[in-house]
């Protein structure tokens, strides 16, 4: 006992002394939005940034209308003392070619030591370019960080190993994207950040936005959905896939995913593929229906908070990770489950 207590003290004293020498972090969170609406993945990034203490600001970059649209909401995010805004039509659609150079100008000008974004399609597009402009490393998809501000933890090999790294002083500004499912969302409501406009100086670019085609679905997006219902090869056909899984997804308010086997067999579109080569998800609830649980699939979903598996093979590897497993025929079980979920909600 005594030894352990002594160890703990010595372990504590090291970060404390370096904390005293070090200038407190001044962090900035890139607040992502679409069509004048805040993408709430950014709220998870705010929580990650709060680990560092020190000043915490947010930045909103976009067309004037979009910036104005989100400003009232983002001012109220708890923990942000300031919101920087940069408005120009050139920033519409958050093109990396215009946004990254702006950030590269703002960061040193405002003495920012850390910039965070959610590890979304936008974060993954803009931040590497920002790192390139600054000739800096980037720390992608973190699941933890230490208050010292230079130690980060991130999954590698599709989550089959966890890497803890120390960033070099050579990378003066830490450029970080955050795995949203690893941090809670910051609350919105009691914040009262001041607003400061920064000069919009859009860079010349030869790239332009043409159009977008969003999947029209009442269901949440797979990568960020809090609940996912996934199907595997046992569904036997595309028709079954939809007939069996869609009602369950609707009852649970979940997104639909698929195993690689189901995608390869043509039962589901490969944008739905969960796994090492598809999407990595970590929802609150993951329901695996007729999925055996190959390692490549597990890599894409094993960080889920609760895993439910329905499979008729009692030896399927999926049961080794499932919190709740039911050995049963999915064609009978799933419709019954849908009814009982509906009943429980009513």
């Amino acid at each position, binding site marked *: 006992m005594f030894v352990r207590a002594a160890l703990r003290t010595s372990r504590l004293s090291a970060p404390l002394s370096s904390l005293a020498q070090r200038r407190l972090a001044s962090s900035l969170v890139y607040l992502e939005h679409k069509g004048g609406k805040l993408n709430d993945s950014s709220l998870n990034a705010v929580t990650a940034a709060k680990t560092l203490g020190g000043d915490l600001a947010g930045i909103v970059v976009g067309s004037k209308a979009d910036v104005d649209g989100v400003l009232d909401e983002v001012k109220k995010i708890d923990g942000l003392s300031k919101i920087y805004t940069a408005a120009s039509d050139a920033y519409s659609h958050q093109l*990396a*070619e215009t946004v*990254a150079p702006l950030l590269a100008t703002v960061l040193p000008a405002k003495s920012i030591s850390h910039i965070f974004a959610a590890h*979304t399609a*936008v974060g*993954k*597009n*803009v*931040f*590497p*370019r*920002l*790192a390139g*402009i600054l*000739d800096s*490393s*980037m720390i*992608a998809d973190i699941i933890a960080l230490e208050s010292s501000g230079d130690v980060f933890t991130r*999954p590698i*090999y599709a*989550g089959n*190993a*966890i890497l*803890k*790294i*120390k*960033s*070099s002083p*050579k990378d003066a500004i830490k450029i970080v994207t955050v795995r949203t499912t690893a941090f809670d969302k910051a609350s919105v409501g009691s914040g009262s950040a001041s607003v400061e406009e920064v000069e919009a100086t859009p860079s010349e670019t*030869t*790239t*332009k*936005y*043409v159009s*977008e*085609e*969003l*999947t029209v679905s009442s269901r949440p*997006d797979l990568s*960020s959905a809090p609940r996912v219902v996934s199907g595997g090869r046992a569904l036997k056909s595309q028709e079954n896939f939809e007939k069996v899984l869609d009602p369950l997804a609707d009852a649970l308010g979940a997104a639909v995913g698929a195993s690689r086997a189901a995608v390869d067999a043509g039962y589901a579109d*490969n*944008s739905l593929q969960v796994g090492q*080569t*598809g999407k990595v998800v970590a929802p609150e*609830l993951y329901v695996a229906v007729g999925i055996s649980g190959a390692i490549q699939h597990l890599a894409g979903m*094993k960080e889920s908070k609760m895993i*439910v598996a329905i499979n008729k093979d*009692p030896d399927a590897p999926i*049961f080794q*990770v*499932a*919190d*709740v*497993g*039911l*050995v049963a025929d999915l064609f009978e*079980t799933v419709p*019954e489950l849908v009814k*009982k*979920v509906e009943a429980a909600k009513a």
Partner: protein
Amino acid sequence: MRPTLPRLVNILVPVKRSIDYAVKIRVASDGKGVDTTVKHSMNPFDEIAVEEAIRQREKNGKLVKSITALSIGPPKAVDTIRTALAMGADAGIHITVPESSVVEPIAVANAIKKIIDRSEGENKFDLVILGKQAIDDDSGSTGGMLAGLLGWGQGTFASKVAIADGGKVEVTREIDGGLEIVEGKLPLIVTTDLRLNEPRYASLPNIMKAKKKKIETLKPEDLGLDFTPRFETISVSEPAKRQGGGKVESVDELVAKLKDAGVL
């Protein structure tokens, strides 16, 4: 009105030798890395990049002048370049590093920039197709970094690439919730998503032919590059093991468990 001269495209495809995607990763006993004495192959997203370069040539005929595969890695990375050559790339460049060294994305991006800066005249590289991420470090940053370093446009997570005369390139990008189309101009950086294409297998005659294709071997110092890592690895560990929570007998029990967990 002057007619637009057809522009010849020189494509550079960086490829990475990484642990084969089907291998179960084991953390090394020193806790500083993973066991690398296992099967390696070309990073799957890079295979898609090589395939895309070849398809662009097949589609656009003479528009694509050359396809060069580049790899930075240990001596064995030459096998990865040979694979790209067997698929249809014309030539290879290999920047060799010692067996166990880690070359970080920003170092890779700087190295690719050097290779591009070095190319000249009608052989100047003007399209770089990279995988969207390597399945070992999962960083997903090299393509964007390279675009930032060069100041070129970028079309990341591409599921469709259309090159037109005059160097206009339309890229369909996979974004959260759907697709986005952007129009860029050469020179351009493209990174590949899984949906872009289905890579071909190299046929035996093509594997034989690939042996005759030229691979230029360089050392980092030949290009004035410094690959000293900026990150210090504190530890590599196994992810927390999940404990299966056991099985239930009926749908009712399953629903009860969901209620207990606050899901319903």
